[in-house]
């Protein structure tokens, strides 16, 4: 009964965090090996739990394994602490801990020259992993929220890892500090929404346990649909913040200021996946309301599209990847939204397909995005720059990195056999289904379908633009002093992940479809996978992807097409809009200056004038009163004795009056 030890999965990285924090400085690599061992232990336990669960009776019946202890009471509410294992939990645990292990191994090479700071780094990444694994195995929303916040804290610490001293100077470290603050504050807005949603749910269900919530969802929705809808929307607000969805997506590109391994961790294994996981976890609640699901789908589709446009002309290798992450997260949310919409309308099979597509894309994305980030980290390690204009021709010098990254690019571009193809085309497919079967709101989904298809084209273009600019063509400035391939600790994880980028899409033929069943409805992965080939829209996206790759090839390798012609050499309105990120940073600034600063000024006024004024006034009155009363202290002993005499006389008189009042002696 290894599932009873599910709590060990987040507990081991937490112990590693403590051990590294306390004695890590004395161990080799400043605790790096402890972090790897911890992540590996978690992975092994996760494998054991998954094997036990997937072969057990509970899985066959479609039930989760869950157990919880009572944590505390507040009035009528009881809050529990426990674990909840179902197929989604298993899938998430496995890929999070596996990819984290590889990232930690890679960190040994990548962070090698960071000296004493490595200790802090390894402690923080262990805590980060604790947050993610804890969030995955939680049995109720409050527990989830706690780990959610742990991750928020760790992302802040790690994005600002170089805020004290950056190798590239003070400006870079100031940039890291402000990026960390931005990430923290923007996700905080989402977290406040999430907390509000949890309050509403606690109020509606008198509990936050998954089992209770899923059981009573229908009854409660029938009783109070408005409040339930509001709660779901607020929870989705948390997802928008955490998973960097439109309009709170702008923190993620800035978060590139951290070490590349951290970006890899945030984008692939933890953090942004938490938001998608939350939607998937709360799927039985979300399907209650079709309109909320339409909203979720719209946010996802718009995010996918907008983020992809911004990646088109970015020159920073990591930022291109960051935008592609946002764009792919948009796909996942779109799939969950479209699937939930279909489910809410009664098409349970298609709803389960949407759920599967979203989660499946999340898993595939984890593999290839970790691969791409670590590959870019290897390139940055070799060339010392993040600017793709200074790279080029690296294929000859970094064969392993280039080949593995090519695998990643093919996967994300959606070329068949590679993992991205299966899940991305399922996502696009489910948007089409939502249009075909939907009712009045279905017209949205045709728009989202068009956006998703265009995004697929843009994705192929910008990923191969990145790959060609980095690895093909003439070696430019920094590429010329590149000292060759990165060390083995860095290339080994790349090779492993490249294999997964190739094959993880095939998991759907081998049982992942059963694992990611939702509310007892399974899809047939083999059937759905093969159905993609008989769907003409699949060929449409495929052709568009190939065209995108071809355009990138012509522009950046053959140079027969001049990109400058399209953007008037950087002067066109669109080009400027893209480099300004559609003015989202300006919008954030405006909002924070006008609204945030305005509110802060008002609060400041109230605090200084009214709260402080009351306190200061009271203390002033006391001090002034004391001052004037102190004049009584003349220093003349006879004044004191007269006061004593007067006092005693007065007391005597009062005593006599009282006695007389009471009837004399």
């Amino acid at each position: 009964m290894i599932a009873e030890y599910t709590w060990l999965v987040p507990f081991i990285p937490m112990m590693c965090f403590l051990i590294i924090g306390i004695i890590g400085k004395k161990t080799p690599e400043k605790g790096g090996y402890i972090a790897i061992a911890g992540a590996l232990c978690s992975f092994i336990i996760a494998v054991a739990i998954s094997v036990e669960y997937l072969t057990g009776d509970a899985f066959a019946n479609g039930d989760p394994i869950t157990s919880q202890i009572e944590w505390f009471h507040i009035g009528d509410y009881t809050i529990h602490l426990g674990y909840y294992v179902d197929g989604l939990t298993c899938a998430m645990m496995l890929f999070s801990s596996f990819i984290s292990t590889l990232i930690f191994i890679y960190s040994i090479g990548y962070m090698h020259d960071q000296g004493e700071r490595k200790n802090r780094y390894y402690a923080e990444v262990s805590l980060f992993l604790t947050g993610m694994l804890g969030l995955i195995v939680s049995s109720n929303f409050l527990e989830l929220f706690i780990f959610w916040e742990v991750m928020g804290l760790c992302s802040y610490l790690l994005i600002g890892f170089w805020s004290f001293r950056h190798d590239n100077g003070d400006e870079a470290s100031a940039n890291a500090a402000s990026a960390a603050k931005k990430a923290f504050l923007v996700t905080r807005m989402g977290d406040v929404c999430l907390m509000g949603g949890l309050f509403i749910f606690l109020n509606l269900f008198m509990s936050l346990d998954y089992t209770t919530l899923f059981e009573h969802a229908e009854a409660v929705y029938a009783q109070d649909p408005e409040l339930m809808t509001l709660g779901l929307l607020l929870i989705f607000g948390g997802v928008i913040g955490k998973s960097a969805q439109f309009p709170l997506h702008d923190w993620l590109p800035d978060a590139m200021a951290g070490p590349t391994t951290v970006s890899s961790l945030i984008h692939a294994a933890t953090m942004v996946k938490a938001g998608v996981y939350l939607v998937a976890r709360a799927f039985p609640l979300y399907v209650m309301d079709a309109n909320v699901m339409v909203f979720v789908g719209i946010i996802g589709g718009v995010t996918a599209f907008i983020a992809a446009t911004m990646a088109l002309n970015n020159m920073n290798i990591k930022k291109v990847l960051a935008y592609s992450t946002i764009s792919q997260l948009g796909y996942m949310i779109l799939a969950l939204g479209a699937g939930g919409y279909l489910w809410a309308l009664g098409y349970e099979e298609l709803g389960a397909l949407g759920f599967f597509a979203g989660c499946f894309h999340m898993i595939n994305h984890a593999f290839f995005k970790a691969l791409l980030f670590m590959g870019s980290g290897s390139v940055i390690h070799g060339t010392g720059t993040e600017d793709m204009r200074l790279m080029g021709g690296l294929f000859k010098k970094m064969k392993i990195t280039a080949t593995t990254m090519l695998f990643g690019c093919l996967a994300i571009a959606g070329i068949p056999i590679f993992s991205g193809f299966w899940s991305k085309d399922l996502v696009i497919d489910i948007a089409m289904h939502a249009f075909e079967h939907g009712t009045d709101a279905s017209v949205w989904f045709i728009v989202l379908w068009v956006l998703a298809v265009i995004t697929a084209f843009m994705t192929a273009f910008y990923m191969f633009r990145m790959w060609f600019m980095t690895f093909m063509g003439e070696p430019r400035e920094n590429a010329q002093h590149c000292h060759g391939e990165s060390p083995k600790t860095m290339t080994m994880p790349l090779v492993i992940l490249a294999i997964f980028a190739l094959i993880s899409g095939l998991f759907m033929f081998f049982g992942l479809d059963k694992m990611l069943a939702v509310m007892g409805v399974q899809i047939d992965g083999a059937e759905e996978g093969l159905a993609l080939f008989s769907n003409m829209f699949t060929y449409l996206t495929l052709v568009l992807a190939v065209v995108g790759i071809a355009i990138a090839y012509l522009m950046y390798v053959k140079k027969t097409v001049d990109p400058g012609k399209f953007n008037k050499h950087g002067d066109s309105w669109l080009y400027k809009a893209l480099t300004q990120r559609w003015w989202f940073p300006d919008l954030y600034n405006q909002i924070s200056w006008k609204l945030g600063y305005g509110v802060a000024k008002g609060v400041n006024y109230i605090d200084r004038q009214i709260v402080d004024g009351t306190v200061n006034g009271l203390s002033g009155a006391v001090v002034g009163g004391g001052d004037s009363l102190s004049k009584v202290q003349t220093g003349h002993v006879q004044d004191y004795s007269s006061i004593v005499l007067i006092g005693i006389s007065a007391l005597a008189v009062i005593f006599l009056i009282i006695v007389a009042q009471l009837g004399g002696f």
Partner: protein
Amino acid sequence: MIPMEFFLILAAILFCIGAYGVLTKSNAIVVLMCIELMLNAANINFVTFAAYNYDITGQAFVIMSISVAAAEVAVGIAILLNAYKIRKTTELNDAELTTMRW
């Protein structure tokens, strides 16, 4: 027999004289003497009540009170003598002695 009120009135007059002296006289020795007057006014009251109530306790208290007063005067005079040595005066309104104020 002399009525008890006579003694009590005598004690009250004596007390008032003493209090007046304490509050108005500027010479510390006079103030000390006035304090003795007030004490003795209280002693007279004690003795009076003891005599009229046939209770010996009051007289015992007076003996006690007189001895304590003697000790107190001795201490007071000693302090005054020392103050006089330093200040060359026994005035209560001396500037140096009135600095203990706000």
